[in-house]
């Protein structure tokens, strides 16, 4: 069907990876319970991973038939710099969330991302970030009481203090 479409950079490697990955998953599914019984917990996983292996092989065969694309490059059309930076930023966010806490991490993340993508001044980016963090904090933390990791800002205590002041029941 797609035979006429040219092969994109990295496509062959990706599809080889898919097929090998499927083979490994099939091996892992076989390890769950082997061919113990029709009702064994490994039966459906084995069937599905076997289907993955077959389809993966077919896709690989199709890919091999395709002519290589001209005019596309891996570093420009598949993994341009902004994509790599964004992936790394999200990863950094996840790593920093526990030790630093929700508020500082989100603020820094947004400031850097907006500055990087939109350009402009850092102050504009920081102000925008502050506004968005305040909104997200309001919705998730205050309205839906999702407890995000507090980290270095003792926001739980501050909130309780403010609430106590507001309700006037200090003791």
């Amino acid at each position, binding site marked *: *069907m*797609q035979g006429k*479409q040219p092969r*994109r950079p*990295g*496509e062959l490697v*990706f599809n080889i990876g*898919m097929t090998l990955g*499927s083979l490994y*998953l099939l091996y*892992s*599914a076989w390890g*769950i*319970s082997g061919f113990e*019984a*029709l*009702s064994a*917990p*490994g*039966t*459906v*996983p084995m069937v*599905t*991973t076997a*289907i*993955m292996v077959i*389809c*993966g092989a*077919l*896709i690989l065969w*199709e890919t091999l038939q395709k002519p290589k694309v001209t005019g596309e490059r891996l570093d420009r*059309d*598949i993994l*341009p710099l*902004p*994509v790599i930076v*964004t*992936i790394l*930023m*999200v*990863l950094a966010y996840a790593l920093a*969330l526990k030790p630093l806490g*929700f508020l500082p991490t*989100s603020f820094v*993340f*947004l400031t850097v*991302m*907006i500055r990087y*993508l*939109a*350009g402009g001044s850092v102050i504009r980016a920081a102000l*925008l970030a502050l506004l*968005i963090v305040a909104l*997200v904090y309001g*919705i998730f933390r205050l309205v*839906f*009481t*999702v*407890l*995000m990791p507090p980290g270095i800002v003792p926001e739980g205590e501050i909130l309780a203090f403010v609430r106590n002041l507001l309700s006037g029941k200090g003791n």
Partner: protein
Amino acid sequence: MDILTWLLVPIVNLDLLALIAVGTFAGIYVGAIPGLSVTMAVSILISFTFSWDVYPALALMIGIYMGGVYGGSRTAILLNIPGAPSAIATALDGYPMAQKGLAGEAIGIVTVVSFIGGFIGIFALAAFAPTISDFAIRFQPRDYMMLGMLGILLVGSLSGGSLVKGIFAGAFGIAIGAVGMDPLTFTERFTFDIPAMRQGVSFIAVMIGMFGISEGLMQLHTIKATAVKQKIGRIIPSWASVRRHLPLGAQTSAIGTVIGALPGTGGDIAALMAYDHARRVTKNPEVPFGKGAIQGLVAPETANNAAVGGAFIPMLTLGIPGDAVTAIMIGALFIHGLNPGPLLMTSQPDMFWFIVSALGIANCFMLIFGLTGIRFFVKVVEMPRTVLLPVILLLSIVGAYAVNNSLSDVYWMLGFGVFGYFLRLYGYPLAPVILGVIMSRLLDDNWRRAIISDREELDRLFMGILSSPLSLALFTAVVLIFVSKTPLWGLIFRKKG
């Protein structure tokens, strides 16, 4: 005449009316934000409404439920990130419409058909609750298994260009659904001896990653391009266009009601099945499916809102939850000193009719709130992407974290986001992966129950299917759809010709 007085309770009490309105309004946002779910909101409300009377507490919860099921479509259309699993099918044609500058029109039609679907579900609840619950309860494991097979066959509709890639993606989804400790035997599956993998992969994290993150990464390619200018034309669809889709909407609402009423399935499966139904019965759509077909919006949105009324059917007639939200509501009724069960309808008919009425009112508020403010929402798409994209990323991360307060879900989300990005680049359809995850347990658990019940003998299972009219009907549907979607069809056709 008692019924009328009970029905009037939420209408004449202004405070109840206001609570339903507030609930519906809040629900639309809960539904629209990925990571905030109706289930979560209703759980929080149990504590929040603890000291209230049961009517006001239920009024608020019902509003949230109705609004939330509808709200999921907002982000699906505008950003290609379904706010809730039941809006996955909506994204398939809704987002392409927004890309053409027709976001306002898409939201308008979705709002109106959601309202229609909602009412059909509520009508079914009011008129046929005992009949439908008698039917729904009789589904055996083998019937659920075949329902799962029907679901998996949707891969054919969701694959876009390459069927092989679609099947690969669907099978991969089923495998993801099996990761973790198997809930039936406590066997570890695909955990690779990593303790953190025992709890499995959060389905919401997969969904947010596959849709939200990978879409965000794709958009980075064209980040400097100006956003699609939205046409501010007609938002409320014309009566003529609504009427044209009414027959389809009625059919998909019926699908939604029944799937909602089944204790093992909910609005997400209903919407996907309805989408598939629309593709089958719509012979010549003006716009092809997947490119912005109106029918692709009408079907899932009528079905998931009809499923709300459907989910209340087993809850109110038998005390059996129709989905996760009604399960929590049963808990809430217990806490408020009521005993939901088969006797509720006879001992407290007022409760039944109150819920019917509150659902109807919530449905009306949904229409009103849904149609107002569309212009404002549509502006979201026109925001500069350079600012919108970081916000989407942040919301995705927080949403994935909020599902289980777990950092590992954030890593899953990122992993599936990056993986989904490559799948997109190399022409794999993403929807079948999500479909596979949704159907995985329905198919796997019920296959095992069915074959165990028939003593591990395939011929016994097969005879069982042949001996029950319901199973036979489902089996026929599975076979027909399978044949029609695979090259087998062409083979048989050619032989006959």
